[in-house]
C-alpha cells in the first residue's frame, strides 16, 4: 500500500484477546465460515490450533498463547493442502507462523485463496520444554520478557504485518486493527469496524523495536557464527544431536511426506559402512548426523522463517533454530529474499534471471 494504512482502534484492555469478540461477530454475520486459532486444551495446560465454527467455543480462545506448540502454518496446511474447498477461514496466528503459511503456499502446501490471515504483534514465546515441565507458565506475556526463547529474542520480524489484517498492540499501545489489503478491509468491515484511526504511533514503535532487534540479531548470530566456525566447532554445537529428526518433523517448512534422510534406499549399506570404517579407522555410528543438518540447510534454509519450532522440539538442547537463522539469513540475502514477507516474490530456487549473481564477491561461476 503506497499511502500509510489506517486502522481501527479497539477499546479494550485485553491486548490480543480483544480480537475474540470481533471474530465471533464475523462468524455470526456469516462472512466467514470458520476461524482457525489457538485454543486452550481441555487439560488447561497446553494450546492447540482449532478450527472453530461455533462462536461460543471462541470463549476458550487465546489468540496469542505464551508457548508455540504446533505452528499455524502446519495447522493450515493440514486443512488446505489439497485446496481450500471454498471454506472461508479467518486464520489467527503469529507473524512467523503466518510467514510459514505464506512460504507453504508458495510450495503448494497451503491454499490461501479463501483464507484471511490475521497476525499480531508478538512478544515471543517461552521454551516449550520449560512450559511443559510447568516451571514457566506466564499468564500474561509482556514485551520485555527475558524468559522468551533465544530465537524470539533475536526476532526482528515479531511485529511484521504479513497478514491481511494485523493487530498492533505492543508496548502499551491501545489495540489497533490494521487492514493490509482488500481482504483485510473486508474482514474488518465484517467485524463492524472502520479503519479510520491513525497508525503512525504503532508504526514508529514497531520500527524502533525492529531496529533494536535487528541489531541484537546481528550481534548474537555473529557470536554464534564465531563459536561454530569451521567443521570442528560446528560439530561441537551439534554433538548432542541424537538423530531423532524431531527438528525436521516439527518444522513447518519441511513438508515432504518422506524425508530424503528417511528413505531406506538412501541409507548406507552395512558393507559400505564397513568399507568406510576400514578406510577411516574410527567413526561415530550411525553416520550422517552432520549430513542431516546440512541437508536440511540445503533443502529449507531459503524458506526458513526462524519460527524456532525445531529448537522447541529438540530433546537434546541443540541450538538448531539459531544455527538455521544464522545460515538462512545469509542464503536468503544472497537472493534478496526474506521468507514469507512478499507473497508475490517466488521462492529463489524455482526461478532465475538470465543475467544475475555474477561476481558480487569473488568468482562464483
Amino acid at each position: 500500500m503506497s499511502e500509510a494504512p489506517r486502522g481501527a482502534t479497539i477499546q479494550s484492555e485485553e491486548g490480543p484477546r480483544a480480537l475474540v469478540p470481533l471474530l465471533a461477530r464475523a462468524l455470526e454475520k456469516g462472512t466467514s465460515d470458520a476461524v482457525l486459532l489457538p485454543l486452550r486444551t481441555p487439560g488447561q495446560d497446553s494450546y492447540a490450533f482449532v478450527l472453530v465454527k461455533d462462536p461460543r467455543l471462541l470463549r476458550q480462545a487465546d489468540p496469542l498463547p505464551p508457548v508455540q506448540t504446533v505452528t499455524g502454518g502446519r495447522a493450515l496446511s493440514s486443512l488446505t493442502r489439497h485446496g481450500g474447498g471454498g471454506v472461508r477461514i479467518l486464520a489467527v496466528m503469529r507473524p512467523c507462523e503466518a510467514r510459514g503459511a505464506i512460504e507453504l503456499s508458495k510450495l503448494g502446501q497451503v491454499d490461501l485463496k479463501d483464507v484471511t490471515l490475521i497476525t499480531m504483534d508478538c512478544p515471543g514465546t517461552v521454551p516449550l520444554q520449560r512450559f511443559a515441565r510447568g516451571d514457566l507458565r506466564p499468564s500474561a506475556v509482556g514485551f520485555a520478557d527475558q524468559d522468551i526463547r533465544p530465537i524470539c529474542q533475536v526476532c526482528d520480524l515479531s511485529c511484521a504485518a504479513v497478514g491481511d489484517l494485523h493487530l498492533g498492540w505492543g508496548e502499551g499501545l491501545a489495540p489497533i486493527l490494521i487492514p493490509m489489503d482488500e481482504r483485510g478491509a473486508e474482514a474488518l468491515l465484517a467485524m463492524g469496524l472502520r479503519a479510520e484511526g491513525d497508525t503512525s504511533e504503532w508504526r514508529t514503535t514497531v520500527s524502533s523495536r525492529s531496529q533494536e532487534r535487528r541489531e541484537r540479531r546481528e550481534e548474537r548470530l555473529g557470536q554464534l557464527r564465531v563459536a561454530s566456525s569451521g567443521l570442528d566447532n560446528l560439530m561441537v554445537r551439534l554433538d548432542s544431536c541424537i538423530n531423532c529428526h524431531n527438528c525436521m518433523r516439527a518444522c513447518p517448512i519441511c513438508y515432504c511426506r518422506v524425508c530424503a534422510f528417511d528413505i531406506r534406499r538412501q541409507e548406507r549399506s552395512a558393507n559400505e559402512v564397513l568399507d568406510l570404517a576400514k578406510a577411516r579407522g574410527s567413526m561415530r555410528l550411525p553416520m550422517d548426523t552432520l549430513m542431516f543438518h546440512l541437508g536440511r540447510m540445503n533443502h529449507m534454509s531459503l524458506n526458513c522463517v526462524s519460527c524456532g519450532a525445531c529448537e522447541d522440539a529438540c530433546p537434546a538442547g541443540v541450538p538448531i533454530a539459531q544455527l538455521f537463522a544464522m545460515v538462512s539469513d545469509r542464503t536468503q540475502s544472497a537472493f534478496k529474499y526474506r521468507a514469507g514477507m512478499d507473497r508475490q516474490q517466488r521462492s529463489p530456487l524455482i526461478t532465475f534471471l538470465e543475467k544475475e549473481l555474477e561476481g558480487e564477491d569473488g568468482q562464483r561461476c
Partner: protein
Amino acid sequence: MSGNEEPRVLGFLCNWCAYAGADLAGVSRLQLPANFCVIRTMCSARTEPLFLFKALLGGMDGVLVAGCHPGDCHYQRGNYFTRRRLVMVQEILKALNMEHERVRLHWISASECSLYQKVLTEFIEDLKGMERNVARDEVFL
C-alpha cells in the same frame, strides 16, 4: 597439502557439454591430472546440493560442477538453476566457515577441451595450497 599427497577431486560433468569437453581433451591427448574422478550427469542441474556435501564430508578435497554455458543448456534452463543452487551452497559453506573454495562451478562447452584442462589444473593447484580436508579425519560426523 603436506608432503607429496595429492588432493582428491570429484567432478560432476554435464553429459552434453563438460563431459564431451573432457572426452575431447582425452582424444586430443591433453595432459590431465590423474587424481580427478568424474561422475557424468545428464544435466548440471542433476547435481543435487547434497551430493556436494556428501563428497566433502566423505573426504574429497574438492568438488567441481561443470555444465553448459548459460543459454546453451541442452534442456533450455537447467544450468540457470544450477547456478542458483551453487550460490546457495557457497553461502551455506561461508556462513559455517567451511572452506567454500572447495566447491567450484564452471561453464565448459563441448569444444573447450583446453579450458577443461586449464580449469582442472588450476583447481588442483589451488587445492594443493590448502590443508587437506579435515572431514577426512573427523570421527563425529
